[in-house]
């Protein structure tokens, strides 16, 4: 039997990897969205040089 044949075990591992991949992509999108929401808030101000140091 060829090595390339899709085994049931591989399908399960693929589902796990795909699931985790999608969760990570969603997390990146969420952090991006949060950043946009925070910087577009009326109360948002860049830290002063003193605060930043």
């Amino acid at each position, binding site marked *: *039997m*060829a090595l390339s044949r899709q085994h049931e075990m591989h399908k*399960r591992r693929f589902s*796990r990897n795909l*699931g985790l991949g999608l969760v990570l992509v969603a997390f990146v999108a969420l952090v991006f*969205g949060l950043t946009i929401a925070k910087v577009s808030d009326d109360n948002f101000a860049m830290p002063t040089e003193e605060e930043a140091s």
Partner: protein
Amino acid sequence: MSDASLTSAQSPAQANEAGFGDYFALLKPRVMTLVVFTAFVGLIAAPTAVHPIVGFAAILFIAVGGGASGALNMWWDADIDAVMKRTARRPIPAGKVTGDEAFAIGMTLTAFSVVMLALATNFVAAGLLAFTIFFYVVIYTMWLKRWTPQNIVIGGAAGAFPPMIGWAAATGGISVESVLMFALIFMWTPPHFWALALFTKMDYDNAEVPMLTVTHGRPSTRRHILVYTVLLAALAIGLGFTSIGGPLYLAVALYLNARFLKGAVEIWRRDETMAEADKYLAERRFFKASLLYLFAHFGAIAAEALLTSLGWGLW
């Protein structure tokens, strides 16, 4: 790897290898729906407007925190879960996920959810979430559950925190309204679980969990259900007169509490012979009604918040 290793029969470990769904099941998705819903209501009932993305993130991190405590609960309670019919198919007793994996996932998600909630909203909400996870895992799961028949009463507090966290995420604080939402779930939990314990008695017996049905007997459990339901009704109706209540909420609360009280009286008046004759019909009906009860109360609070935001709130 040789061809032979692929063509030969799978080893038991491979046959039982977990899929993504098995790891997700560690987070107790059904309990998570309640957490998400009540936290969402707490958030929108709050008098402070929240950016939709921040609100979404807050609910998500509260849900992840709830899921983390579910995974830690499954890690600690794997021995009990294995002997109870209701929980025997959970990922650890089913051999899909190891206890160590569940512990690692639970601890990682705990840290992740608390830190992310603090960054997305504020430290009060994050602190409440951390305390909730601690309460559920350490106070309830590790300590009370196997020690006292009041396990459900005190442990129920853990499930009652999400609307308070949602409220805190929006306002940055705690108020009478958020405490009342907490109290509503806190008082609802005992009759909900005691009704379940009445028709799954053998399960708790086998697992040696000191449920009220096991330690004090069934007539006492029936009395407890009635007393808690009376207290719950007073609280649920009282909440209607606060700033998050209103005529719509009050109408829903009056109807549902009258029905719930009727169910509790019915349970109280029955004995085991009557219950076994109809296979615990009244107890099962009460348990099912309790799910609707909570969702409808919080749904009504959400509806009142919506009406208020449209300028149609009456108080």
